[in-house]
């Protein structure tokens, strides 16, 4: 026990010393689960890092390590960054949750920001994006645009984040098109371009003319383009190279405003542990430009939904909504609470099939 204390204090002393030596620059570390060249999740986090550098110039120094496995490797990389004098560390994968908490205990003077998790501490904040708000916009466009009334959805893993997106898209597609039907395929991977391409092709072959995806590669976009009369939406990044068609809009993970704000808080010395779950309003969820392939009235409807979500006048999960089994979930006018949304493990009424267990 004694030795831990000794080591911790030694580490702290060194950390402090390093901090004191470079009092002028704030060092910000980023731990990435994938390569920065993945063109999706990690790529967007790295764009956020670059935005921090651009915003603060010489005031900050950013460092990152990519391809860090969740587990002991992540813990080591975070510790290393803290030892080397990082003042603020962003850990950008759900699996980094426990390692982040462990390391944060050892370095009370270093601030940590963990993406998509639910465990916090005095020096650990969590942040996540309300991507389901973007799904509401997508669902609206999808419902209007589909002619076959079949919308294909490529899920990654059956986790609340993805289920939430499916429900939100479905509710809003159904609202504008009561005949719409969702076909959902689980790829059981976040990233496998070949499999994603196959999934998109299968959905198109089975009649889908709109493809929504919750996996990160552009493979489904290319498959839709090859198929012809199919529309898609960019995921994670804008994927504008596939516009104006098949890609008619996109959900962009825009971490830059948050990263800049939090870095500024550390520089100004007023950083506090918070739980941030921001959406379109705060700019964390970006809606990529709606292309000309979308008729003007549909575009208008989509932008109206986007605006009402952004100013807080509308919540994508507003009752009456029933669960898939027909039981009541939200009464007329009631909106979903964040707790239920965070752990969402059920489909809403009208969706077919079961969530794989």
């Amino acid at each position, binding site marked *: 026990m004694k*030795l831990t204390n000794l080591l911790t204090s*030694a580490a702290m002393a060194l950390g402090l010393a390093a901090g004191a030596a470079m009092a002028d620059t704030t060092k910000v570390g980023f731990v990435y689960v994938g*390569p920065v060249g993945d063109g999706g999740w990690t790529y967007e986090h790295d764009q956020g890092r670059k935005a921090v550098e651009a915003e603060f110039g010489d005031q900050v120094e950013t460092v990152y390590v990519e391809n860090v496995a*969740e*587990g002991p*490797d992540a813990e080591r990389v975070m510790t290393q960054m803290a030892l080397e004098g990082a003042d603020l560390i962003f850990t950008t994968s759900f699996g980094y949750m*426990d390692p982040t908490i462990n390391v944060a205990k050892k370095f009370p003077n270093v601030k940590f920001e963990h993406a998509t998790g639910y465990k916090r501490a005095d020096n650990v904040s969590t942040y996540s994006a309300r991507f389901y708000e973007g799904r509401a916009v997508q669902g609206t466009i999808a419902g209007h645009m589909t002619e076959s009334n079949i919308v294909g959805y490529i899920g990654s893993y059956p986790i609340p984040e993805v*289920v939430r997106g499916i429900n939100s898209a479905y509710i809003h597609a159904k609202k504008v098109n009561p005949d719409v039907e969702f076909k959902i395929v689980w790829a059981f991977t976040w990233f496998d371009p070949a499999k994603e391409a196959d999934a998109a092709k299968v959905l198109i072959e089975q009649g889908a003319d709109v493809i929504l995806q919750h996996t990160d590669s552009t493979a489904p976009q290319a498959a839709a383009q090859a198929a012809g009369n199919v529309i898609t939406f960019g995921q994670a990044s804008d994927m504008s190279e596939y516009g104006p068609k098949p890609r008619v809009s996109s959900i962009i993970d825009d971490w830059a405003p948050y990263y800049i704000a939090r870095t500024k808080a550390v520089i100004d010395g007023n950083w506090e542990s918070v739980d941030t779950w921001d959406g379109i309003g705060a700019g964390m969820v970006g809606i990529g430009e709606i292309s000309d392939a979308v008729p003007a009235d549909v575009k208008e409807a989509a932008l109206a939904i986007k605006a009402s979500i952004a100013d807080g006048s509308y919540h994508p999960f507003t009752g009456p909504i029933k669960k898939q089994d027909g039981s009541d979930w939200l009464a007329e006018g009631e909106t979903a609470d964040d707790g239920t949304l965070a*752990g969402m493990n059920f489909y809403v009424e009208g969706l077919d099939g079961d969530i794989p*267990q």
Partner: protein
Amino acid sequence: MIRLEKRPQPSRAWSMATPLVAVLATMLFGGLLFAALGKPPVEAIRTIFWEPLFGEFSFYYRPQLLVKGAPLVLIAIGLSLGFRAGIWNIGAEGQYIMGAIFGAGAGLAFYPLEAFYIFPIMVIAGAFGGWLWAMIPAVLKTRFGTNEILVSLMLVYVAEQFLASVSLGLLKNPEGFGFPGSRNLQSWDAAHNAELIAGTGMHWGVVAALIAVIFAYVLLNRHMTGYHIRLTGEAPRAAKFAGVNPTRLVLFCLGTSGALAGLAGMFEVSGPSGQISIDFNVGYGFTAIIVAFLGRLHPVGILLAGGLMALTYIGGDIAQSNLQLPAAAIQVFQGMLLFFLLAFDLLTNFRIAIGKPEVA
């Protein structure tokens, strides 16, 4: 003309010198690579090899070398026994996964009981899981003569799918808000494979790895089974005459390597990693194969090779963070190191001769 002549005896001097030559060659070519990427080559090499061992924060990195190296050594020791006898288990990754699943599963069955016997049960279950998975290629080989390289490799993919399945189903943390992955064993004392002496990185897996090294050394040098293993590898026909039972040898070698890989998985899941998740395995089982060969299939050599691999991983991450070297450059650097180590081993067993072959 340049030819290779087989040495009558492997050269001891060269077997010691080749790893050094290989590391030096890697530093040279790796340095060129880093320079080509516009990074300071000397600084990069120093960061990878020196920083974790003797740098400013080596008090933290040295224990981490144990954490990273222990599973590699533990698995590689088991593999080396079979490799020496010409029995090729390359599915240690699968056995590692199954050991972790069995170990964690056996523990979680008791959750949230705090009892002294839970951890030992997990150890046994972990070893059993790995052993069981290795017994599939072993039995198929002894019973039907099936190629164990291919069966054990196939079983890695089966194990990976099984891991995904239990992470999303059977072992999913009921309090995890629907996210995949099991409970964290680090926060449950009875099942936590904690550091034995805090701050040293020394957990039961490290102890097990060291015991395995000694065990393998004694087995190979002092024991009949070890003699049989060596004999089978070096002179299969002589082994037959010496009365070696090939079936038992296959079962022993694959079983031992499977059990050790399973143990490594179990110690990892209950200690440094903490939980079963979809991406729990990070390729230790495959890297250990390389470690076994880098260590020339010798227990002490494996210990050193495991340390070297751990060093490049840890130093590589430091270089990424401090010098912004891309992870891919580190990977290429590691690949080079392996190539050179493998290639220069040539000098241990062969002599480079210039001129015409002597008339034998």
